[in-house]
């Protein structure tokens, strides 16, 4: 009836469940009392014994009962809402916690968009599960027996007839539930994939339009929507089957109860009040069960959503080290025979040796896909599961608590994201305590000041999703400003200047040089001239560290570095070398 794992989640909040069920029970009792009142009145009317004062006397009693019922109903709803909200927050927290843990390794097949969909749609489905279904399960266990008890006082045969109809309901529920389980799972999948595909196609719609693929994709989206429609109709059909069967049982059962009442009354075993009460309450007896049945699809969808959520929550936990990286003024990073693979088969880094320390500006160059960013992710602590050794101040990375590493590491790469928020909030992401003046100074450092001055909204300018209303280079510079505001000891710049012009690049390079006076700076770049003056240059080739040294030593060796530099010089000079100066001034 109730998913154990979901129910267990709400341990701390069960008080609210109790209050909700209690109030729903009281409310039912008040209802029965008012029905009794009606039965008494009707009886006296039918027997012709009624007097106006009977009725007038009944009025305040009725009003009191109504009032009490409204009160209890209010409490019932409020408590159920609290219960489900507690459950919902708990699940959301867990999901968030897991996402943030999982991100630094692999999310498996779970995309951010599915997770967002689960968090928004799925957890809401569950809120109906907790807020409506679970309380109803308990109410259903309490209310019908009480009605039975009341009717039983008048006549046990009628009560027995009603009881005999009861097993029919759970039986039909069970059968239908078996059938429905697979369907609601399918339904939930279809729902999530609908949202997921939609999101991706919306994000990529510009690309699709450029290549006139939007119509094809539109057709695909319609097929998706159609698939979703068929699966929801399947679920519905199951649900309707159950409701129809139940309706028949409810009204047939009440009929049987009333008929039994009539027989009993004709034999003089049931008085008129009892008979009228049977008429009024026999349906009421079945209704909680019927309502529970109609909530079944809510429950199933909730459980299906939860299944997927649990699959994510159950992804194996990476065991991180406990050791805290202590903050000092000087850091030294060393890699020895470091190897790494994302999938365990294709080697990405192979037996790499590498070192860097505070006060140095280290450059990492190599062809696209040679493993530079992977090394950068290892050094920043985003990736674990390496072979060989990677240490910082003598501590092996895998023994370190990642958050203590992150406190020292600042990183920007093409994966860095801006948030849908104001410019101020995006900058303060780097340092929540920074004053506006400091934020503007940071913008100045990355050559964004003149752009900033054109903004009528100033720091309150709202950035759209991932800096969509900025130019490519502006976005990159803003991410750098944000990073500078977060004062770190180790900086990693992964292709930080790929989208900016030569002027801005020179300014950004100067910032990096200045940082390297007191910090450890690692730069990944494709423009060889920008790292020429680095303290040491490492050259990666297909995952192997093929060369290292200063520009002077490397350029005198035959090898990858020299090839890259020569290629660059050839290309930059190009067809008309005399334009060089003019172009350089932009």
């Amino acid at each position, binding site marked *: 009836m109730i998913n154990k794992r979901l129910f267990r989640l709400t341990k701390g909040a069960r008080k609210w469940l109790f209050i909700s069920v209690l109030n729903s029970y009281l409310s039912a009792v008040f209802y029965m009392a008012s029905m009794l009142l009606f039965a008494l009145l009707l009886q006296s009317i039918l027997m012709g014994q009624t007097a106006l004062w009977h009725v007038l006397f009944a009025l305040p009693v009725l009003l009191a009962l*109504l009032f009490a019922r409204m009160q209890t109903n*209010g409490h019932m709803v409020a408590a159920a809402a609290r219960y489900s909200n507690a459950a919902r927050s708990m699940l959301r927290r867990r999901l968030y916690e897991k996402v943030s843990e999982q991100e630094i390794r692999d999310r498996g097949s779970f995309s951010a968009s599915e997770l967002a969909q689960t968090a928004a749609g799925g957890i809401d489905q569950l809120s109906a599960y907790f807020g409506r279904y679970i309380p109803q399960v308990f109410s259903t266990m309490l209310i019908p027996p009480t009605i039975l008890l009341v009717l039983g006082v008048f006549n046990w045969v009628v009560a027995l007839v009603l009881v005999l109809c009861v097993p029919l309901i759970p039986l039909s529920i069970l059968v239908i539930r078996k059938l429905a389980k697979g369907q609601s799972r399918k339904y939930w999948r279809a729902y999530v994939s609908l949202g997921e595909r939609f999101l991706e196609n919306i*994000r990529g719609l*510009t690309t699709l339009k450029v290549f006139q693929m939007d119509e094809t994709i539109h057709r695909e989206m319609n097929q998706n929507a159609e698939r979703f429609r068929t699966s929801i109709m399947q679920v*519905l059909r199951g649900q309707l089957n159950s409701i129809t069967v139940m309706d028949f049982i409810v009204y047939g059962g009440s009929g049987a109860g009333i008929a039994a009442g009539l*027989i009993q009354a004709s034999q003089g075993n049931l008085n008129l009040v009892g008979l009228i009460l049977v008429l009024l309450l026999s349906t009421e007896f079945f209704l909680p069960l019927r309502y529970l049945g109609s909530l079944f699809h809510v429950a199933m969808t909730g459980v299906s959503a939860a299944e997927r959520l649990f699959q994510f929550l159950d992804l194996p936990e990476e065991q991180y080290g406990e050791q805290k990286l202590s903050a000092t003024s000087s850091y030294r990073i060393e890699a020895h025979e470091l190897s790494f693979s994302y999938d365990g088969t294709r080697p990405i880094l192979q037996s790499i040796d590498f070192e860097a320390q505070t006060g140095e500006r280290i450059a990492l160059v190599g*062809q696209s896909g040679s493993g530079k960013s992977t090394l950068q992710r290892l050094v920043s602590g985003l990736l674990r599961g390496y072979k060989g050794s990677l240490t910082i101040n003598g501590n092996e990375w895998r023994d370190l608590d990642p958050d203590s590493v992150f406190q020292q590491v600042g990183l920007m790469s093409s994966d860095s994201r801006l948030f849908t928020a104001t410019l101020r909030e995006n900058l303060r992401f780097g340092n929540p305590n920074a004053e506006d003046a400091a934020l503007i100074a940071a913008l100045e450092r990355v050559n964004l000041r003149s752009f900033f001055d054109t903004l009528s909204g100033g720091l309150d300018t709202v950035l759209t999703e991932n800096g969509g209303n900025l130019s490519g280079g502006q976005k990159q510079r803003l991410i750098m400003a944000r990073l500078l505001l977060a004062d770190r000891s180790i900086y990693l710049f992964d292709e930080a200047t790929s989208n900016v012009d*030569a002027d801005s690049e020179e300014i950004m390079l100067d910032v990096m040089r200045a940082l390297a006076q007191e910090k450890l700076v690692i730069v990944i770049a494709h423009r060889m001239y920008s790292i020429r003056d680095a303290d040491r240059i490492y050259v990666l080739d297909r995952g192997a560290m093929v060369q290292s040294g200063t520009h002077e030593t490397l350029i005198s060796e035959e090898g990858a570095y020299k090839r890259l530099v020569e290629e660059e010089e050839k*290309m930059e000079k190009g067809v008309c070398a005399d334009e060089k100066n*003019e172009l350089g001034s932009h």
Partner: protein
Amino acid sequence: MRRTSSAVIKLLKLAGPLTPMLLFSAFSGAVSSLSVPAIFLLGAYGIEKLLYGNPLILWSVFGGMLVLALVRGVFRYTEQYTGHYVAFRLLAKLRDQVFTAMRRLAPAKLEARNSGELVSTVTGDIELIEVFYAHTIGPVLIGVTVSTVMTIVLWMIHPVFGMIGLAAYLTLGCVIPIINYQHEKDKGTAMRRIAGQFHHLQLDIFSGIRDIRLFGRKKLYEQKLMNMEQELSHEEIQLGKNAFFLRGLGESGLLFFTFAILFAGTILVSSGILVGSSVLYAAIAFFASSAPVLALNQLGNGLIPAFAACRRVVQLIEELPAVKEAASGYEPSTFEDVELGQVDFGYDDQPEILKAIDFHLDKGDKIGLSGASGSGKSTLLKLIMRFWDPTHGEVMLNGEPMTLIQTRALRVIEGASLQDAFLFNQSIADNIRIGNPNATDEEVATAAEQVNLKQMIDRLPHGFETKVGELGDRLSTGERQRLALARLFVRDSDLILLDEPTSNVDRLNEHMILRALDERFEGKSMLIVSHRRSALNHTDAVYAMEQGRLKKIR
């Protein structure tokens, strides 16, 4: 309210050919709803027979009840099934229309919208409209039918009962829900808005979680998440409380009016006008007919989020695009030239980015475009691709103004690679085939070869069938860029627009790509935006964008 009514009219129109089915659903609903009071009246009939000593026709009473229960079940089934069938059909249609709107709005107007909110609209909001089709139109018609029939029945017992019934049906089914809706509708709007924002916030946070971890802002964003959840719960609880207040009011009203019938009945019986059993009939009939009326009473509340959702969806569907694409008009088959004459442009109401730009690109030209970051190079490309229209001046292709050129034909002629390479979470081959769905395996492989990805792909365990991950995050940045470029190689465009095509690749790759572009698009026209001199050197002429103006520098 006006917005709501026009949105509702739009939704009703959407039903179109499905209207008869909707009416059939309402008819079934009325039959099934009326069978409930009939069951009870039969019970009351039994009691009357019993009371006045008539021979008890028990089996016919019980049999009648069973038949009615069956009628109830069957018609309820058809009501619900057809109602939902129509509803979900129309929801699928709405989803289609939303995507049509997206296509129309993209890219200019779409950029300004948060994708998470859009997803919330296409999933959450549209689902809510189900309430309108499946649980509003039917119940309203059912409510009206049942109330009318029952008022007549009550009237036949005695006009006073009829009047009480009518008053009850009007109050419970009409007055209260309308007042409630008027009073509460803003809550629905707020709730749906927050729900959309919340969805987007979660997407934004989950997508940026890596930075959140790195910058140590985990607690901060957890707080943001929880605050917003609370805001949303607050609205929901308000609406939920209101629903229960209404339900309480409805039930109380019902009991109260039942009481009124008893009261009037007492007077009528004691003054000898009626016999007691008539009062029993009246009370039971009224009481048992309550369900559809109570449903109406609740409806107002259920509709609050539904109508809010409906307004959001309709607003999206009806939003006007920044650029009205031409479905017909001049259909260029080849590319002759592009000309910008005195073009001014600024995004929405922001300061002008391009000022009085004159620019010409002839067939066979290879032109480079440089300039400071943020100076408007990408913007210029967007104008040539007609993502936006200039504020002043004209962009012309083959001597025809862009606005008169069939947009589809324009897209065939132009092939572009944008600054942000967008990859779909599909296989490498599928991503290349975005450029041309009919490309053969050989063509795909050749394109990969041309952007120097072939070797890398061959080393992958699944080769071209490897999935690239969400937004391509299982590839390196340069690989992403090259993969996106490969799309240009599997199609035949006359004008190639490249925005920073080689910004994320090393020099050797850059060299190979530029050479491959030269070879593949020999004789075609090309416009390359780049900060790299190396790329610009591949062109015949170079312009620089400076303070919104173009200057020829070579």
